[in-house]
């Protein structure tokens, strides 16, 4: 099993992801410079957080034109796992690998704090180790995390159970007060129809050791490695 972490100019959570995969997941992992075009030796690709291309034009908008994104699209098309975190989620939306878009937070602030998110679907490669309804404490750190999509897309997301995480309180209640950024229907993370591509605004790679306030992020990485192991068996 091998993980790859894409590095764009301006990525800044690539080392956090590398640390988690090598130390907590215990799997081989490479940094992949955005000019790379061959991802055939990997089982899972992480598109990390940061400010790729300085967020010029729109967050994630320019990264989608990096050479590696063609390879990421091909990789995802083969059913392999693509996991976008924060700016990675924005890039996957801009690339069309995930539906919708991430706009400026409703209150216009850059928000950096721990939030609670509820697992809405257990049947994904990223949540198979987590009970549906479980509340995870994971930090967010973004200014553009306000998820929007049109009504038809939202309907489709609900129908296909593609909404994987919702912002909630510590008891799992989703209200406007627990919605940090104005996201449609408290959406914190979604997957594609085939479930192999996941994007989320919260940072699970920053929540893998108790010293940092939470280790709930590990469940997500553990789910993914389980899935890859099962597929290989």
């Amino acid at each position, binding site marked *: 099993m091998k993980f790859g972490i894409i590095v764009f100019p301006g990525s800044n959570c690539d080392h956090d992801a590398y640390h988690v995969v090598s130390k907590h997941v215990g799997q081989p992992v490479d940094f992949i410079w955005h000019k790379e075009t061959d991802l055939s030796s990997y089982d899972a690709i992480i598109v990390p957080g940061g400010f790729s291309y300085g967020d010029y*034009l*729109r967050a994630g*908008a320019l990264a989608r*034109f990096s050479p590696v994104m063609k390879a990421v699209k091909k990789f995802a098309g083969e059913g392999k796992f693509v996991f976008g975190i924060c700016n990675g989620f924005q890039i996957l*939306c*801009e690339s069309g690998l995930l*539906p*919708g*878009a991430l*706009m*400026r*937070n*409703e*209150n*216009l602030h850059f928000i950096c704090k721990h939030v609670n998110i509820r697992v809405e679907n257990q049947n994904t490669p990223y949540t198979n180790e987590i009970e549906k309804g479980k509340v995870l404490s994971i930090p967010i750190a973004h200014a553009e995390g*306000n998820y*929007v*999509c*049109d009504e038809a897309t939202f309907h489709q997301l609900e129908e296909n159970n593609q909404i994987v995480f919702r912002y909630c309180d510590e008891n799992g209640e989703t209200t406007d007060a627990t919605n940090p950024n*104005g996201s449609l229907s408290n959406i914190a993370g979604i997957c594609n129809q085939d479930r192999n591509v996941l994007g989320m605004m919260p940072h699970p790679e920053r929540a893998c050791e108790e010293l940092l306030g939470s280790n709930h992020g590990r469940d997500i990485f553990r789910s993914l490695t389980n899935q890859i192991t099962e597929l290989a068996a």
Partner: protein
Amino acid sequence: MKAKVYVTLKPSVLDPQGKAIRHSAELLGFEDIAEIRQGKYFEIALGSELSESEAKNTAEKIAKDVLANPVIEDYRVELENSRK
């Protein structure tokens, strides 16, 4: 030839930045504001050998593929012919 591209949020999309700008304008004493919406404006200088329709097509393509996100934004292209 210069192309001017205006990228605006779709009417259905809320604009938190526009809302904040409107609030500031109101604080300055401008009271009769129904709404302010923020957009982006681009000037693209195109090669002089392009015909008007080629220039328009090129600018439209750039607007559609790069400048605007069709999920949340609309765009409008105007040509300004500098050859007089």
